């Protein structure tokens, strides 16, 4: 086997030095009846070319050459080439969690830069070194709020990504608390009057998403005021991180849970992505996950270390703030490189392009249907309501190699034939016009680039 750096002769010599006569001696502790005496029933060993061919064939059976208007928590943005060049350096790729600070300063400094950038973007004081993704990050944020407040009532907006809400319910159900949902108003935002009624002295937190699942920007200051009046925490989930280039950061929030996939991370059929938690500094003690801090070495030189680990499972065991151990470090590095590439000006320019494309798309598609919640500020997604059932409409679009908006019926049946559309800087005017033409029933030709 080509990954194994030993000859059979070396194996025999090593066994002899150990004092074993055969390799089976080393497995003799496994009781006979549980020893596998046959080959595993899996595909035979393949040559590298065969492995590559297998995956090329699989890749060919996925969508190829389609224009796509899908978003809904997984966004297609341009990924600068140098991200991949840099994260494929073995020193980043094949390093472990930086517990041995003297020989992992590269990873540690990069995470410190990541934490700083997340604070800058979100308006929070502290950020951790990543969570699994936006959905588990939101669930962990809720757990954190419960610990901070000592209360166990949770309110969550129905405009939060439905799958985030499902994950939160899974996390919460066995902890003696569960979430109540607060609906949305005709403007596509959380119903503030309903929220005001729902928040009580027992409410640990209010979880909203902004831009929300419909792409609408929530009125964070107003929501914060309602939550804070009853001393509940406000958690703002951000599924589309690029929005922060142009959308006011949720500075009134107590905790921000963000999915940073948009920052240069491949869609990759759903993962790995990059969750992150940021918060006001007074909640530091209850923050889950790893944190990197600056310090000095014995010579007074600057260096970075994993710190405040007494919150974590390997020290605190069952009293830890979370059971999280492995996080998404390499993906966090990708987002750090992305943010370094775009920088202060680029983030704004990029976000403005997204805004412009979505505006154009909403206008173009809106002529063939109805854009819901049209008067409320939004980022780069919108809900399109059509006469035609979503399935039928999308089937017609697929014939023209266009993947249309995500049907919402499963989660929001009250919206009828509604689809969620997303346009990013990669969506072209030609693609938008083509989609509009298909919806209108006109014949079109479309290029995917």
């Amino acid at each position, binding site marked *: 086997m080509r*990954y*194994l750096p030993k000859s059979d002769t070396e194996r025999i010599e090593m066994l002899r030095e150990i*004092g074993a006569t055969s390799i089976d001696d080393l*497995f003799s502790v496994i*009781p006979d009846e549980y020893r596998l005496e046959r*080959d*595993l029933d*899996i595909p035979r*060993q393949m040559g590298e070319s065969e*492995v*590559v061919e297998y995956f090329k064939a699989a890749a060919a059976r*996925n*969508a190829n050459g389609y224009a796509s208007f899908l978003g809904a*928590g997984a966004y297609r943005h341009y990924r600068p080439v140098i991200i991949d060049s*840099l994260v494929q350096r*073995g*020193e*980043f*790729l*094949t*390093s472990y969690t930086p517990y041995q*600070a*003297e020989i992992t*300063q*590269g*990873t540690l400094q990069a995470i410190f830069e990541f*934490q*700083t950038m997340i604070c*800058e973007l979100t308006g929070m004081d502290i950020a951790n*070194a990543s969570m*699994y*993704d936006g959905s588990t990050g939101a669930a962990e944020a809720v757990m954190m709020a419960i610990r901070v407040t000592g209360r166990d009532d949770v309110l969550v907006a129905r405009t939060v990504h439905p799958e*985030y809400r*499902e994950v939160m319910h*899974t996390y919460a*159900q066995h902890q*003696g608390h569960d979430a109540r949902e607060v609906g949305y108003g005709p403007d596509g935002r959380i119903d503030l009057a309903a929220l005001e009624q729902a928040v009580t002295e027992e409410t640990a937190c209010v979880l909203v998403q902004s831009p929300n699942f419909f792409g609408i920007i929530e009125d964070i200051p107003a929501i914060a005021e309602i939550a804070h009046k009853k001393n509940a925490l406000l958690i703002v989930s951000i599924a589309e991180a690029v929005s922060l280039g*142009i959308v006011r950061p949720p500075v009134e929030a107590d905790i921000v849970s963000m999915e940073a996939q948009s920052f240069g991370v491949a869609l990759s*059929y*759903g*993962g*790995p992505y990059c969750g992150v938690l940021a918060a006001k500094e*007074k909640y*530091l003690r209850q923050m889950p996950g790893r944190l990197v*801090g*600056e310090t000095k*070495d014995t010579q007074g030189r600057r260096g970075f270390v994993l710190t*405040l680990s007494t919150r974590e499972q390997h020290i*605190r*065991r*069952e009293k830890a703030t979370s*059971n999280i*151990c492995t996080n*998404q470090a*390499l993906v966090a590095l990708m987002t750090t490189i992305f943010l370094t590439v*775009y920088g202060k000006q680029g983030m704004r320019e*990029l976000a*403005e392009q997204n805004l412009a494309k979505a*505006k154009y798309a909403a206008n173009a598609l809106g002529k063939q249907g109805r854009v819901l919640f049209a008067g409320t500020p939004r980022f780069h997604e919108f809900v399109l309501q059509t006469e035609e059932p979503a399935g039928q409409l999308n089937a017609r679009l697929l014939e023209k190699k266009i*993947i249309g908006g995500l049907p919402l019926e499963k989660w929001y049946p009250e919206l009828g034939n509604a689809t969620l559309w997303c346009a990013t800087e990669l969506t072209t005017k030609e693609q938008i016009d083509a989609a509009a033409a298909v919806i209108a029933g006109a014949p079109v030709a479309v290029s995917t680039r």
Partner: protein
Amino acid sequence: MMATTDRFTGTTRKVTAHLTQNEGLSFEKSSPGKKGYKLAPLDVPAVDAAALLGEAVRKDEPTLPELSEIEIIRHFTRLSTWNYAIDLGMYPLGSCTMKYNPRVNEFVSRLEGIAEAHPYQPESLSQGALGIIKLLQDCLMEITGMDAITLQPAAGAHGEFTGIMLVRAYHQSKGNPRKHVIIPDSAHGTNPATAATCGYQVVNLKSNAQGGVDVAALAQMVNEDTAAMMLTNPSTIGVFENEIHKIADVLHDKGALLYMDGANMNALVGKTRPGDFGADVMHLNLHKTFSTPHGGGGPGSGPVACKKTLEPFLPSPVLKQGSNGLLYWDYNRPQSVGRVRMLYGNFGMFVRALAYILANGPDGLRQTTEDAVLNANYIRRKLEDVYDLPYSTPSMHEVVFSDKRQTRNGVKTGDIAKRLIDYGFHPYTTSFPLIVPGALMIEPTESESREELDLFIDAMRQIAREVEENPELVTSAPHSTRVSRLDETTAARKPVLRWQAAGASEAVEIDSAAKEW
């Protein structure tokens, strides 16, 4: 550089000191107006963001670096050279399985049809992705001897969470979720943290004199309130629980389940199967056993495999195959514990793990396991005369020594670990498992040649001699790194967790309850 002294100072054979570049934070290198990007021109009318967004428009400018592309390349390349990595040499972290991460895995995960697949694209246009998931699931079920599986969990601890949720749902379906989970004192910290997260009390089981499960003590502990036992096999001291079936029987007799922490599965693949020896549910770490890269701490992937009885409770959705042969996600799972993560899991890691399995085949995987165990036993044989071996039970894929002999000279496991750095190795795992005071937990994996092992053994033996003759050299190590030992106490007492413009970074205020740090 080594400290100059008349006393014994070892000779490093693996490494030679060389220069590394200095590099500040990206923020410190930034200057206004520099750019590392160029967007395509906008092909639709530009918009007035302030008019569109009103109050919601961003008015402040986040402080992000402004750098050109070459500076960014150098910045991160320089940082990378400050890291140790498997690609540079042996990384003997016990329980972490730092094996070679094959490059073909990276290549195939980046194929356009795979990397650009949107998770909500129609299933008819996702058959390639679903096929990869199906084949990986089938392989992992065969390897573990289990009947059902979910790939949704994002890491090992997340898999534990999912597995214990399955246990809970199973008991709940019988009318009572039960109260506690039994966990040996040798377990990873994630085990008790997981049980607590799932609403269970943790009952600690003291290990027996061999470092294994005390079956008699366990039998006394298990009752109708026991939901499960979480067991790592081989244990964290690298020992196979040879009474595993008795353990399973003791649990099953009271209706409790056996959860197996699969962190150490690299010792078992192709040689024995947890499903055959009584485990009801287990997680795997694709980033350990199945060669997906650790990436400086993630991403991982923590599939959970289980017996048929637990299948109804698996997270939704579950992959199914229709009569037309097409694969699809089944969301109609009334007994499911719910989602543990959005979408389907860390798919990019599935691709890599499957590429590893295909490149190995049954013979390669078995040989891999055998080599991993061979390497650990070789190290044990070559070091047991200089380092204390607290448990003489046969080792599987890792060996755990203690610093008992070295502490007589005031040198602890952490010091020896730091000194290993000067010899060109990443340290082993220190001070774990907790049942071994001053533990040196060494897991070489199969990826080390005899030459590399011999260099490691030579380094460890020289350090042992330094401890006898020149202990200060060891307690002040490392001497060859960019930074020496870092002040972790100040880092925790006055945390500086982000860079601040203009002037020194400031420590955040911690409330008084933080004194326990």
